[in-house]
């Protein structure tokens, strides 16, 4: 019974494809891909709509107010109203803008975000596209986002757009390095770049109770936190949302976009967020595996989306709690703390592997991380936390 519920979507796809049996193989392949793409878009656009209203509700709860509650029951139809508003808004393109680049930027940014979703395993046998270097594909596609942001900033022919794009690119490039290096220990330990095999490596339970997720090892826990923080920066979320700022640079690279193009940017930001949290769940939280072996009767995709939602809740929680950081603080944090720590994760994972992957390895890798963490916090002079900023080119 639970097996068939677990595989219900896979079986549904097989059933759909069985109607095409007489067709040649390449037609079946294309239709199969189209079904995957359609399912991905349907699920994640729904999730985007749901997330946009839930985020406002949760932020409202954190700030002791109601949040949207006018449209539909509990304000649940708010995204529909927002969508209609965005669709019927006038699309304004500045007269001096580079029309083609200005038009292509939101398309490219949304395409990059959606493509990254394609390699994440959502459940047992539910990876939309199995690529030999799936993890690398994720980051290769993600790296085109920078060019898209630049196109938006440059194509708008506006100072604020350009400066906002510069800020966005600066922080994205700085945090892409730790983001990739924190993935390295997982890839090293598993010995594969395929997301499915990374999930399979976390399937067992120690003593039948504790799942062998990488987040329960010292290097995994450190890498997970670093990956999560870098993911926050990559998706331009609070506390790292300096590319936008009403009092400084308006809406950054999105200043000159209105109507549905702006909505596309907004959607790409959220889809990118889903992709990065989905990858975090895959790499460190055991993907679609259940946390307890007795709970394995619950379908795998339910576990995946439960983990995804938990991580997204943390995103919203952080947004409601933390103040913004300055761009120089973000940069210093990246190069002076996050980058050395992520290199330490690689070393700690190697120590863990060569000390036998057991309790001894656990302790030794913990020691490595503790030493580097203590040394860094002493060297970086963290006592001088709230010193006033010194300006070099302004009074």
């Amino acid at each position: 019974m639970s097996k068939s519920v677990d595989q219900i979507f896979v079986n549904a796809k097989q059933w759909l494809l069985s109607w095409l049996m007489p067709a040649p193989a390449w037609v079946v392949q294309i239709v199969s891909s189209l079904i995957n793409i359609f399912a991905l878009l349907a699920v994640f656009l729904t999730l985007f709509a749901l997330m946009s209203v839930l985020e406002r509700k949760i932020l409202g709860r954190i700030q002791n107010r109601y949040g949207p509650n006018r449209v539909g029951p509990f304000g649940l139809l708010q995204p529909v109203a927002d969508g209609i508003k965005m669709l019927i808004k006038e699309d304004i393109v500045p007269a001096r803008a580079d029309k083609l680049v200005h038009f292509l930027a939101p398309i490219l940014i949304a395409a990059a975000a959606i493509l990254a979703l394609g390699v994440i395993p959502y459940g047992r046998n539910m990876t939309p596209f199995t690529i030999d270097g799936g993890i690398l594909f994720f980051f290769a596609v993600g790296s085109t986002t920078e060019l898209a942001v630049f196109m938006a900033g440059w194509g708008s022919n506006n100072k604020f757009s350009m400066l906002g794009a510069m800020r966005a690119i600066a922080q994205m490039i700085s945090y892409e390095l730790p983001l990739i290096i924190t993935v390295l220990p997982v890839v090293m330990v598993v010995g594969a770049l395929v997301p499915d095999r990374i999930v399979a490596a976390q399937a067992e339970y120690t003593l039948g109770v504790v799942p062998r997720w990488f987040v329960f090892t010292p290097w995994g826990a450190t890498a997970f936190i670093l990956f999560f923080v870098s993911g926050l920066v990559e998706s331009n979320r609070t506390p790292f949302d300096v590319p936008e700022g009403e009092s400084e640079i308006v809406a950054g690279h999105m200043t000159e976009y209105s109507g549905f193009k702006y909505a596309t940017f907004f959607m790409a930001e959220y889809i990118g967020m889903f992709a990065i949290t989905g990858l975090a769940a895959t790499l460190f939280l055991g993907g679609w595996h259940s946390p307890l072996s007795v709970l394995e009767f619950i379908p795998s995709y339910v576990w995946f989306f439960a983990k995804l939602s938990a991580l997204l809740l943390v995103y919203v929680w952080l947004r409601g709690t933390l103040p913004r950081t300055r761009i120089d603080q973000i940069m210093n944090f990246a190069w002076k703390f996050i980058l050395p720590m992520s290199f330490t994760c690689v070393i700690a994972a190697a120590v863990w592997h060569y000390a036998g992957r057991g309790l001894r390895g656990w302790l030794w890798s913990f020691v490595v991380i503790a030493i580097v963490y203590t040394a860094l916090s002493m060297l970086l002079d963290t006592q001088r936390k709230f010193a006033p900023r010194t300006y070099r080119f302004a009074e």
Partner: protein
Amino acid sequence: MSSAAFVLIAMVTLAAALAAATLQKLMHATLSFAVALVGVAAFFFLLGAEFVGLVLVFVYIGAVAVLIVFTILLTRRDVGKDRGANWGGALLAVAVFGGLAWAVFKTQSVAIGAPHIRALTVKRIGEALMTSYVWPLQCVGLLLTAALIGALVLVMEEKR
């Protein structure tokens, strides 16, 4: 189907490369250069060398194209000036084309579309890099680390 894909990708790549060479605005040329690189990456995918294609996208679109774009932004703008035909550049292009054509026609040992070649998986590339090519790999790693540290030294705040 694969030959149709080949022709399609080749047309897109060549058109983008031509645009990159001829477009007046430097920024448009850079963006079409990026499109041409995506086309080349698509060729690698078509040949089953996914890793090389992904690294090409990763390095050239994610890093080199952004670097070029920054370089254009931070340097002088003299778009309007027409400097006439660049004969040196044309000569160089012909020389490069001649050299590549010579190399292509000289190479006969590789059978095109040989079906028996094993798929170029990430695992095999990793094994090759860690065994027979470990010294070049270490040298490149040292060079890149030196470049990273050098960049950090360049932007370090001077002590007053």
